[in-house]
């Protein structure tokens, strides 16, 4: 599973990235977590509100910082 956290360096984006790492660790998942900070990449992925999370190329969350619990639910949902 590829998890991409998109954001351009604002505080919220960093928090979302850390929360995602924590969620992955708590689930003992082997998903890879990647931080996408390049504006061009974010635009090309078609995302308009940051911070956002994409799992395996699908947008699952956008526009706010999600708590670890919610991210865990998103990951579990994607695994099914």
């Amino acid at each position: 599973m590829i998890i991409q956290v998109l954001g351009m360096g604002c505080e919220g984006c960093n928090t979302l990235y850390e929360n995602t790492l924590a969620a992955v660790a708590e689930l003992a998942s082997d998903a890879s977590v990647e931080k996408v900070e390049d504006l061009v990449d974010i635009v090309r992925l078609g995302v308009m509100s940051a911070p956002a999370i994409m799992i395996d190329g699908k947008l699952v969350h956008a526009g706010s910082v999600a708590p670890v619990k919610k991210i865990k639910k998103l990951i579990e949902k994607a695994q099914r």
Partner: protein
Amino acid sequence: MWTFFQNEVLGMKWLDRLVGRILESFGLDTATRLGGSLRFFCYDVIKIFVLLSVLIFLISYIQSYFPPERSKRILGRFHGLGANCIAALLGTVTPFCSCSSIPLFIGFTSAGLPLGVTFSFLISSPMVDLGSLILLMSIFGGRVAIVYVLLGLVIAVIGGSVIERLHLEESVEDFIRSAPAIETALDVPDQRERLEYALEQLLSTVRKVAPYIFLGVGIGAFIHNWIPEDLIVRLLGSGNPLGVFVAVLVGIPMYADIFGCIPIAEALLSKGALLGVVLAFMMAVTTLSLPSMVMLRKAVKPKLLGVFFGICTAGIILVGYCFNLIQPLLLG
């Protein structure tokens, strides 16, 4: 009836009295400088946090009905000045993180929306939002708040139209024009997800904005009780015809949340600063902040950036003087 609503519900003056009484029961004389500052600090902080929480929750809930993809579709249906107006209105319900404004702008532009429309959106987004509207009402009164929002929207619409007339489409960075117009959309949320989203926004925004509020209220309290009135009047009040310019100049390099600015504005006003000066300061801080200019530069070439900056500044200064003139009407 309205005055009661304004003073007690929005202004929460009962809280002020309550805090005053609690402090006095501890033996503090709130008439003194220290006592007065403390009373103001406690009252204002609590008031702002409560109003903030309620507002952000409500606004975020409304926001969940307007994801960027939907805004893009709505805007696509309008033309001309009407489109600018709708864009300005939609800008008021945009998310709070400045990280979003640039990708949003790019998303709209690559979808083919006219430059002027996207700029109306971009101008109104930081300057005017429903949250600050209600907060303004609680401090300055309903009339000021409504005029502030209206004038903010006017700047957004006119600013966008001017940019449209100048035909600066070439000034958008190339990668945007060649970016695919494919949008990535989230699934439509159900009621429960909307409420969860609203709660998320509330918690994360409060966390982010809290230091600014404490700072703002602190400064406000300081001004309230420690800065002499005639100094304020001389610098920012009727004693200084260039007050608006000073306010805008000071506001530009600063970036602070609008919620943090309001207590400062409130304190300055009560010390004799002119209304226009104070509001111009708030507008300058939120719209013309250096960090957002830097981010915008990634999407837009210097020429367009300069035009955007110039229009906003001019608009804000004009609005500032406007408010100064009609102050007696609004607050009298």
